Structures are given as structure tokens and as C-alpha cells.
């Protein structure tokens, strides 16, 4: 290598000295540090509380279900149960979709409910970005600070006519470039310290160290993309005004415009019919399955014939099992199959939409880093879907568990006569031990490996951005002109 590392660090140090002597640079730096500190502390406090709160709510919900008195099993199917999605430890850095999706689901027989009560609905509406998280500060605000401090690295020397003497000293353009990038990189690294601390807090609360550090690394790469771009623009353009104008334009399009264009493009390319609309189709499909509450529905004639043949009896009254329970069980299974088909179709559509939108990361590293950060932190769309699927598994298990009790623990005669008198109604109940069919639910985000897998695409986008910008920067600095 022709450029000595000591020269590179000398150049970088000179840049730092300049910043430290500028009152406006110090003021900007302090303001940003203050914002990072405030958002980090607030987000950390909020999500630590939420994690405890939701874990607690989950326990309460389970206890409540288990402590229900003796009841008709189908009543418990409708009594239902709640599951809560506990935010992952790294939500203290990036809350991701947590704030826009509901965090709990009510589980009951015959229905797949949507997640309820997203924060956004009840909280104050003030437009714009609304909430600031450490993630959004690093994505949106810090690049502005880098621009403010870094845009002049070359163009300042050019305007002050100090570039020619520097080059005349035998310092190569590439050495200068490396020194200036190093100065901004060191600044970025210093600014990443709070995030590193947050990720270590994440590790302390049980997150895998690999993904925790990878989140920090992704933001590091992102800030490096900015540093490389800023130095490149400063080297390639003639005047400060033009450099600043171009950088602000890039910032505007990367962080404000492109992400929203991506959303518009994705929703145009993959239009979503919405749940309500598919519900009509679903209802039409379900009508073919028969009403599981009505054992006389002709849709269950085949089931009836099979059971009669299996037990070799002539009427449902003679069956050793409760026919009404069998109908409930069979219809729940059929119903769930149809509902899952619709749910899977909907989730697949959402994933396609998100992939389409995230593809715009090739145009905006800001979009790429947000996708990478959400995937790595376990607060992405896939995690939400995982929650929906796991909730559905819990739902199906306990409903079918209760239906099984319905089949085995309650006689058909007692069941059909349950509305005749108060005494008959009491006979048509089963004991609370049967409620233990409910599985304990503790939502866990995907494993580190799965998350790295999901983040592969945005990480490769960031890598391509970084290598391209550095390659162009080195190329441009070779032919650096004063």
C-alpha cells in the first residue's frame, strides 16, 4: 500500500480537531447525543415494562381459564382464552411492527380473531413520524449530523485552496480519502456506543449475542454507507452549496420519500383485499361445511353414517360417545382447515407485499437497514405471522381438547336435554380438570439463525451499497483535483 496508515490517521485527526473547535458542530453533536440518550432510555423503560406486563397478563389469562368452574365443554370453547405477544429484548432498540399490530389475540372456537388494539389507534395523532425510537434516530437523524459535520471534508479544503498544497506534499488522493472516511467512521463508531450498550442490555435479558451485535453492525454499515457517500460527494463536487444540496436531496429521498414510494408501489402491485372482504368468501366456503352447533345439519350425515358403522349401532343415541361432541370436533377441524387456508393466503400476500417494498432497499439504504434491523431484532412481519400461527395452534389444541372431553366425558343424553331444567343443565357439565388441555403459551421470537436468514437480503443490499460507494470513492480520489 502506498498510503501510510499514520498519514491516514493524521488526516482523520485533523478533521476531528476542526469539529471539536467548531461551536456549531459541538452544539449539533450534543443535541443528537441528547436525543439518542432520551429515546434510548424511554424506549428501554417502556419495553421492559411491556415485557413484564404482557408476560404477567399471559399468566393471569391462563390462571383464569384453569380456574373456571365446572361447565358444559362447549361453553369453555366460547369462553375462550387470550394469548399475548411479548416483545423481544431488542425491541428496546427497534420496536418494529409491535406498535402497529395488536399484541394480544382472543382465542375461541370457530373463529380466528385478529390481533387486537394496536397502540396507534388509541394514542394521540400528531402525524409525521410520531414515535422516535433509537432505530429511527440512527436511521434518520444521525445521517443528518454526519452530513452537517462531514460535507466539507474536501470541498472546504478546495474552497480554502488548501487542497493543492496537500496534494503537492505528496499525499495521494486515496490517502486523503481514507483519512476523511476514517474521521467520519470514528465519529459514527462513537455515536454507535449507546446502541451497543442497548444491545448488551438485550443480551442481558436473554437475546442471542450474535443477533444483538449484528443489529449494531447493520447500523454501523449503514452509517459507513453515509460516510463514504458524504466524502465522495465532497470530493467530486466543486462548491459547498452543491455538495450540501445534493446530500440533503439524497437524505430526503432515502429516508422520507423512497420508503413511502415503496409502500405505494407494493400496495399497487399486490393489492390486498382486506380481511373483511375475504371473510365473505370464507363465509360462503364455510356454509358448505355445515354449522357445528347443529348436529342435525345434513352436512354431518356422512360423519353420522361412518360413526354408526364404526360402532355398529343404529342410532346416535346408542353410540358410546357423544355425537354432538363428535360433530363439534369434526366441524372445528374442517373449519380450521378452511380458515387456515385463508389466513395463509393472506399472510403470503403480506409477505409478498413486504418483499416488494423491501426491494426498494436497492434504491435506499435507509430502507435496507430498517428491514435488516427489524428482521434481526425479531420485530418483523414474519414474527407477527409467527405469533398468529402459534396463537392459532394454541387455539386449535384447546378447542379440540375441549371437544374431545365433550365426546368422551359428557353423555349424549345429558347433552341434548341440557336445556330442560336447571338440574339437567347441571348434569351437562364436566369438571374443571378438563380445562388443563390448555397449553402454556410463551411467545418466543425466531431463533438467531432464522433471523439471519430473513435478514440476508437487506444485509446484502447494504453490503453492495457500501462496496460500490467505497470503490467509486477510491476511484474518484485517485483523480482528485484541487
Amino acid at each position, binding site marked *: 500500500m502506498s498510503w501510510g496508515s499514520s498519514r491516514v490517521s493524521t488526516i482523520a485527526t485533523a478533521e476531528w480537531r476542526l469539529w471539536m473547535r467548531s461551536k456549531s458542530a459541538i452544539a449539533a453533536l450534543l443535541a443528537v447525543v441528547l436525543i439518542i440518550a432520551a429515546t434510548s432510555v424511554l424506549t428501554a423503560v417502556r419495553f421492559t415494562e411491556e415485557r413484564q406486563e404482557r408476560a404477567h397478563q399471559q399468566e393471569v389469562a391462563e390462571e383464569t381459564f384453569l380456574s373456571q368452574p365446572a361447565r358444559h365443554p362447549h361453553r369453555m370453547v366460547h369462553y375462550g382464552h387470550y394469548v399475548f405477544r411479548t416483545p423481544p429484548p431488542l425491541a428496546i432498540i427497534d420496536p418494529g411492527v409491535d406498535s402497529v399490530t395488536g399484541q394480544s389475540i382472543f382465542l375461541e372456537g370457530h373463529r380466528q380473531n385478529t390481533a387486537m388494539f394496536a397502540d396507534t389507534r388509541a394514542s394521540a*395523532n400528531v402525524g409525521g413520524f410520531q414515535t422516535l425510537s433509537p432505530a429511527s434516530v440512527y436511521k434518520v437523524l444521525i445521517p443528518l449530523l454526519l452530513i452537517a459535520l462531514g460535507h466539507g471534508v474536501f470541498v472546504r479544503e478546495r474552497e480554502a485552496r488548501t487542497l493543492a498544497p496537500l496534494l503537492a506534499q505528496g499525499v495521494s488522493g486515496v490517502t486523503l480519502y481514507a483519512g476523511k472516511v476514517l474521521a467520519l467512521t470514528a465519529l459514527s463508531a462513537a455515536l454507535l456506543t449507546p446502541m451497543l450498550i442497548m444491545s448488551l442490555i438485550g443480551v442481558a435479558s436473554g437475546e442471542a449475542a450474535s443477533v444483538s451485535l449484528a443489529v449494531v453492525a447493520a447500523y454501523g454499515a449503514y452509517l459507513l454507507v453515509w460516510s463514504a457517500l458524504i466524502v465522495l460527494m465532497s470530493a467530486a463536487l466543486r462548491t459547498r452549496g452543491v455538495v450540501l444540496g445534493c446530500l440533503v436531496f439524497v437524505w430526503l429521498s432515502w429516508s422520507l420519500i423512497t420508503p413511502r414510494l415503496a409502500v*405505494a408501489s407494493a*400496495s399497487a402491485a399486490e393489492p390486498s383485499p382486506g380481511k373483511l372482504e375475504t371473510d*365473505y368468501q370464507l363465509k360462503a366456503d364455510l356454509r358448505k361445511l355445515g354449522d357445528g352447533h347443529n348436529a342435525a345439519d345434513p352436512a354431518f350425515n356422512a360423519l353420522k353414517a361412518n360413526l354408526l358403522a364404526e360402532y355398529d349401532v343404529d342410532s346416535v343415541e346408542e353410540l358410546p360417545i357423544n355425537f354432538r361432541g363428535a360433530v363439534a370436533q369434526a366441524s372445528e377441524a374442517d373449519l380450521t382447515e378452511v380458515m387456515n387456508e385463508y389466513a395463509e393466503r393472506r399472510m403470503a400476500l403480506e409477505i409478498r407485499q413486504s418483499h416488494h417494498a423491501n426491494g426498494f432497499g436497492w434504491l435506499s439504504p435507509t430502507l435496507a437497514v430498517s428491514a435488516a434491523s427489524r428482521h434481526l431484532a425479531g420485530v418483523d412481519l414474519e414474527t407477527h405471522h409467527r405469533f398468529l400461527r402459534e396463537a392459532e395452534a394454541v387455539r386449535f389444541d384447546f378447542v379440540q381438547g375441549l371437544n374431545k372431553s365433550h365426546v368422551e366425558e359428557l353423555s349424549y343424553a345429558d347433552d341434548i336435554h341440557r336445556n330442560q331444567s336447571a338440574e339437567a343443565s347441571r348434569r351437562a357439565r364436566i369438571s374443571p380438570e378438563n380445562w388443563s388441555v390448555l397449553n402454556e403459551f410463551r411467545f418466543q421470537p425466531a431463533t438467531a439463525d432464522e433471523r439471519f436468514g430473513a435478514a440476508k437480503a437487506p444485509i446484502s443490499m447494504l453490503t453492495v451499497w457500501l462496496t460500490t460507494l467505497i470503490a467509486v470513492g477510491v476511484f474518484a480520489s485517485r483523480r482528485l483535483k484541487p
Partner: protein
Amino acid sequence: MSGLGRELWFLWRDRAAKVWLLIGCAAAGLAVVFGLTEIAAQRDMIERLKAADEIERAVTTEGHREDWGSAAYYTFHLTYDPPEEFAFAALGLRDASPWKHRVRMLALEGQIHESDAANPDFALTGRFDFAFVAAMIAPLILIMLLHDLRSRERASGRYNLLSATSADVRMLWFSRAAWRVGALTFVLLVPLWIAGFMSGAGASKLFAASLALLAHLLFWWTVIAFVNSRTWTSTVNLTALIGLWLAFAVVAPAAIKASVDAAIGVPEGGDIMLTQREAVNDAWDLPQEATMTPFVERHPDLEPYAEVEGTFEWKWYYAFQQVGDQVAEPLSVAYREGRARRDALAGRLAWLSPPAKLERALQRMAGTDALAALQYEDEVRAFHADLRAFYYPPMFKGEAVTDAALAERPNFEIPAKGR
């Protein structure tokens, strides 16, 4: 060259200014196109839903005529909140708050909080609508247009010459800035007006929106003029102004939101449903009077028919559905009031953040704000009450289901909106 024409010509010769104005125009143009597309898609969806609802209602009505209880149990009713003509400009909360619901005679609290939200990744990013361009992007463009108006002249040594040459130097700086503010306002408003006429939004609304935008830009002009009045360099000006933009457009809204949410507590939404569910489920095991007594308090006219025979009767079933709502009512009212109070306080505090104020104002005009969402919720509640008023008498009196009676069944109608 006359004084005013001279500075317009000067602006025309400024390439950087033209580029920024073009960006502004393109952003506003794209925003209204996206807005119009989204609104058209929402209207289409409502039409499709209405058609699907009609088919399904015919099927369920035909299949469940044995008694009023079954008819009410199986029949869903579509309600919807169609976008207003001006909604293209500010899509507002329509992504987060439901604008379509299907309800039936069961406890309303179990139905009205269902959401049919779009892709959460989208909700996270937000929409590219005119309100966003006007509130967030326009100030940045104005900053880029104005921040170096004087400092650039100072840096290139022209400032003294301009001052010494100009017959009215204050007029010079004023008209230079004014043309830029005017040009930006113009390029932002032209797409808005075109889209407004295409969608049939009233001229008065377009006019009010234009005034709001102008007021917003005038605020920023004042801020920029203040910063420019310091004798700082262009770089320092720009850094300071972008800092102020961050403060007003990003940090202040986040702080307002956080403090409003902290200051005004709202019951956990989940608690409302939980309370209602518990009440409905417990009712099965309670003596029937425990349900019918609170029920007839609300419906004294039905008292003569409130006697329940046997262990199950539809009127008892629906009575405990309603009592479930009644039990959850304090929470539900608190939830509604809380949201309304949060919105009102946010509206007052939004004066601290002109971009937030503008976005809220545009959403108000577009009928896509929190108040509009609450209003729709109230409409659904009123409709649900109509359904109860329709079903209860024949159900309690044990009348037969007839075509003539079914023809009287209420349909959701969009009330005339007083926005």
C-alpha cells in the same frame, strides 16, 4: 425590468432553485396520484363489500327464518365509512382505524374493536400523501431554497454591492424570498387543485387547505428569515435550520404524542373485551333474573314480555349480550372519551409543532382524523342500537318472521356528515 419581474427572472435563472421546485412539484403530484388511487380503491372495495353483503344477507335470511333469534344470530350487517372527496389529500388514520365493520346483534363491544388493518409494514412506514408532503417535505425544500439567500451573496462578496446598488435593499431580500415561497406554494398547490377538481372536492375545502399550507410555509419563512438575519455562513444556517426542522417536525410531535398518552390514561382496549366476555359468559350460570332485571331497566317497554321460560330462550340470550355491553359500558365510554380527550389535547399541543398542526388540519378537512374515526364508531353504535330496536319487539313478543317485517329491517346508511 421592473422590481418584481426582476426577481422572478432571477429565480428562473437559478438552477438549484428550479431543481428543488421541481422536486416539490413531483412530490406533490405523486402524493395526490397515490391519494386518488387509494381513495378509488377504498370506494371500489366498499362497492364490492356491499355486493357481497347483499348476496350473503339473502342467503342467511332465507336459511334462518325459523325465529327472530336465529335470524338475528346469523345475519351480519355491513357498515362502512366511505372516504370523502378530499380524503385523497390526507389518508390519515384510515390505515390504522377501521372504516368498515360487519356487525350483528351480539354484544357490540365484542365486535367494534376488531380491526381490519393493512400490512403492518405499511402502517409502520406511513403513506405518501399530500399532507405528508406539505407538512414534512415542503419545509425542507423551503429551507433549501432560502437558507443561503444572503449568506451566499456574503460569501461571494456581492452582499455589499447589492446593498449599495439597490434602491430599496429590504425590498430586494423580501422579494427574492417571497418569489421562492410563492413558487413553492404554487407548485405544491397546482397538483392539489387538479386532483381536487378531479375528485370533486369542494372549492371551499381546497381553498382552506391552500390557506393552511400557505400559513405553514409562512411560519417556516419566518423561522428561516430569523436564522438568515444572523450573519452566519450558509453551512451554519443550513445546519441550524435542519436542526429546527428536526425539532419542529420530528422531535416535537414525538414528545407531544408521548406526553399526551402519558397525561391522559385510556383503559386497555383488551380489558373492554375481557369484561364484556366475562359478563356474557357468566350470565349462562347466573339466574335469569340477574340478566333480565338490568335489561328491562334499559327497555321498560319490553318488561311485560321479559319472562323467560325454560333454560334457553333467544330473548334471554340477547339480553345477556346487551347486559355484557352494559357491564363494559363504563370502560368503553372511558375508552372513547379518553381517545377524544387525547385528540383534543394533541390538537392544542400541536400548535407547538406547525407541521403536526398542518397534518391534523388537513386530516380534519379530509375526514380522516381521530374525530372522524370516533364519529364512524358512533354511527356503528347507533346502527347497532337500531338493529336492537328492530329485533327486540317481535322477538320478545314471539312474532313470526315475515317478509313484510324483514323488509323493515334497518340498513346502514351513511349519515350526512357535518365536517
